[in-house]
């Protein structure tokens, strides 16, 4: 089965090979962190996409002050949205020889004689950490500054240093009513050297924004995990140190508490329109298109972006314009996180529908924020944008607005309808409603009659049918009771004529047992009598009589007198007695 799957995959990749050849080649360089200490190991990954082979290994510029070690290569093929991407990754490890800020890259690679260059990344190398190593497993917490302004963004970094294998890690962050913590990016893992010992470090970065003034302690963070200590009998790492072979111990490591002083924003120089934005921000505005006909619309976009408490970026308002109508779109806030903190942007859009022709300047938008680095308030403004409104036909204007409503403004959210007054709806004045009236709330006799009538009709018909059936049954019973008497009377009248006697016997059986026989055979008569409880001897006697009568009739003596030799009325009386 596995062989078949492998074969299918191979054929599939072979088929895809032509697509790969035509793909664009790009090269990208990525460091596993932006800051490290001397002797720390920084991982560099050079990713090449669009090909799985190159003329040579990539050459990385800017690594003269580093020891570089090759980490290996790996190739990949992936299919995303039906597109096939193949690539190769080269991994290297850098170890800095001195401190400073270095620009790593670009990485250069030659594929089929054509050379490609990657991006560059900055790496800050600091002095070796003087931290105290606390055994094989410990947690440290650092704060980017122990003094901050209210709403200023700080970095709270947790680092788990370990020289043992761990699993099932869970984290308990400090709780406080004085600041908010938000995780930045995914945790990073790298190697670091502390006091000459190499540790595997798991680093988690948080954005910390204080929202109360004063001096306070940031309580320690706690990390719970299962640790697999190395074999103590030997200093060498044993094969059996692997978590697969050992049960592990539950461990909790605690970071050190940190102090933080939060000061209020200065009152001096605070602009009137200050809304509490702290950080570093930029603002820009664009009008597209800058020339429209009356009735057509242009889009004014104002984008406010920067780093800091981006969630507090206020919604800007566009002033009313005499020459155009303004329709506001729902502002879009985008918040991103990188290793240096939260950054984001708020984009506000307005549809500007021109009404009066002319060349106009849209007033600039301004906003103020506090820059904690310079400890000053700053006011930033957009540069004024101009809008030229050309003459346009009213019909065209209306059509364009409708068109815009239907198509153009797909991304524009509708404004909530705002109440500008409240009153009740007017009285109902139609005379018809008075004449029509309402359905009576309490059903009257007639109404109940209408409900009960179908039931009564059904019951009446049902009872009638039942009565009819029972009546028919009772008539048959009366006839059955009188059948014997009627037979005796007929017998006395025509006792010696076989034809009449045979008819009288048949009539008797028909009436007695509610039958409709047109003719009667002796066997049939016996069966009828027996089925109604008459004894075999008695039935046999009637059998003999009927057979005798039939013989007489079929020999042409049906009208001649004959002697049946039996007391026929007595036999009928006996039959009557024996019937159940």
């Amino acid at each position, binding site marked *: 089965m596995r062989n078949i799957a492998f074969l299918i995959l191979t054929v599939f990749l072979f088929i895809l090979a032509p697509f790969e050849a035509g793909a664009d080649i790009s090269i990208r360089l990525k460091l596993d962190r932006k800051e490290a200490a001397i002797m720390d190991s920084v991982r560099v990954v050079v990713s090449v996409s669009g090909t799985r082979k190159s003329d040579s290994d990539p050459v990385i510029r800017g690594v003269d002050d580093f020891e570089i070690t090759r980490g290996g290569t790996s190739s990949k093929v992936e299919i995303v949205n039906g597109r096939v991407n193949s690539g190769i990754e080269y991994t290297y490890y850098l170890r800095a020889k001195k401190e400073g800020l270095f620009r790593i890259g670009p990485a250069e690679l030659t594929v089929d004689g054509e050379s490609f260059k990657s991006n560059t990344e900055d790496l800050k190398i600091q002095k070796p950490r003087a931290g105290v190593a606390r055994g094989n497993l410990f947690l440290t917490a650092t704060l980017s500054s122990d003094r901050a302004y209210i709403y200023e963004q700080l970095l709270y970094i947790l680092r788990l240093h370990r020289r043992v294998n761990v699993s099932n890690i869970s984290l308990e962050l400090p709780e406080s009513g004085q600041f908010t913590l938000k995780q930045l990016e995914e945790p990073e893992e790298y190697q670091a050297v502390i006091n000459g010992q190499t540790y595997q470090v798991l680093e988690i970065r948080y954005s910390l924004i204080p929202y109360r003034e004063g001096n306070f302690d940031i309580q320690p963070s706690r990390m719970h995990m299962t640790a697999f200590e190395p074999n103590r009998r030997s200093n060498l790492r044993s094969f059996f140190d692997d978590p697969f072979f050992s049960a592990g111990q539950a461990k909790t490591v605690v970071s050190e508490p940190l102090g933080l002083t939060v000061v209020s924003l200065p009152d001096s120089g605070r602009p009137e329109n200050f809304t509490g934005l702290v950080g570093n921000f930029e603002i820009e505005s664009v009008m597209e298109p800058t020339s429209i006909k009356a009735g057509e619309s242009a889009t004014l976009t104002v984008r406010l972006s920067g780093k800091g408490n981006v969630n507090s970026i206020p919604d800007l308002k566009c002033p009313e314009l005499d020459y155009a109508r303004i329709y506001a779109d729902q502002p879009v806030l985008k918040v991103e996180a990188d290793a240096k903190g939260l950054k984001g942007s708020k984009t506000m859009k307005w549809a500007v529908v021109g009404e009066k022709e002319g060349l106009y300047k849209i007033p600039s938008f301004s906003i103020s924020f506090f820059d904690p680095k310079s400890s000053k308030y700053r006011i930033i403004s957009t540069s004024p944008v101009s809008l030229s409104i050309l003459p346009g036909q009213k019909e065209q204007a209306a059509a364009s607005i409708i068109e815009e409503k239907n198509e153009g403004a797909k991304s524009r959210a509708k404004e909530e309808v705002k109440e500008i007054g*409240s*009153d*009740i*709806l*007017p*009285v*109902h*004045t139609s*005379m018809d*409603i*008075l004449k029509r*009236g*309402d*359905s*009576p*709330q*309490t*059903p009257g006799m007639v*109404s109940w009659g*209408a*409900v009960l009538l*179908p*039931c009564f*009709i*059904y019951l009446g*018909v*049902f009872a009638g*049918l039942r009565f009819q059936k029972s009546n028919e049954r009772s008539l048959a019973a009366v006839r059955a009771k009188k059948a014997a008497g009627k037979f005796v009377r007929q017998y006395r009248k025509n006792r010696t004529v076989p034809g009449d006697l045979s008819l009288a016997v048949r009539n008797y059986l028909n009436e007695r047992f509610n039958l409709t026989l047109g003719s009667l055979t002796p066997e049939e008569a016996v069966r009828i009598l027996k089925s109604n409880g008459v004894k075999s001897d008695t039935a046999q006697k009637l059998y003999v009589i009927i057979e005798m009568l039939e013989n007489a009739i079929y020999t042409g003596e049906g009208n001649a007198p004959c002697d049946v030799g039996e007391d026929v009325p007595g036999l009928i009386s006996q039959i009557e007695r024996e019937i159940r």
Partner: protein
Amino acid sequence: MKRYIWIVTSILVSFFSVINCARAQEENRDEIFFNSNNACRDGNYKEAIDGYRRLIISGHENGHVYYNLGNAYFKTGQIGRAVLNYERARMLIPRDADLNFNLRSARYRTQDAIPENRPFINSVFFWIDDFSTGELFWGFAVLNLFFWAVLLIRLFRRSEWSYYILLILLVLWIVAGISFGCRWHQFRNDERAVIVQKEVDVLAGPDINDTALFKLHEGAVVHNERSENGWYLIQISEKQRGWIPAQAAENIGK
């Protein structure tokens, strides 16, 4: 012969007199309604109130008349009586959009936050509140007619299709019957009352000297448990009940 002519003439005269009388009453009703509507439009709400009330007292109970009366009270600032008449109108024309809008507006202006206790059966038979008793009754009557008609057909012809139709009708007949029964029960046992005074003290007993437990304000809909010597024992929740003077509240049901 003369005698017969005299009798026939008398019968005809009486017949036409009754018809004329009914027509006169109808014209009078239309006139009152028309004048009240005009008074409402001109802002003479007191006159409008008198007119609508006369119509109701003279037996022309109609959801729209109650609605108009509620509007007139609303305009005079009597929110309690407005709520009362809107609620009465809702029994008759529950799906009227104007009525429901105005009732919401009136309730919005009331002061007391009293949760509406919706009976469990109304949650199960959720459509009950959207139909008047009369509508549910006639809905049931029509289903009843079809149900017995199919049963009747099956007395003579027991076909398969009639069996399935009978099953469907039986289910609908039961549902419609329960819906009507519940609504009728609620209509006949409607013990809701509306506070019509600006403010009323709810006392611990039916005496002016009893301890005041809490206050209610006009427009509050309460449950009137029983009346006793000009006092109502009202309840708004299991923990809040007490006595108020009968003139402070008016029952929605009559």
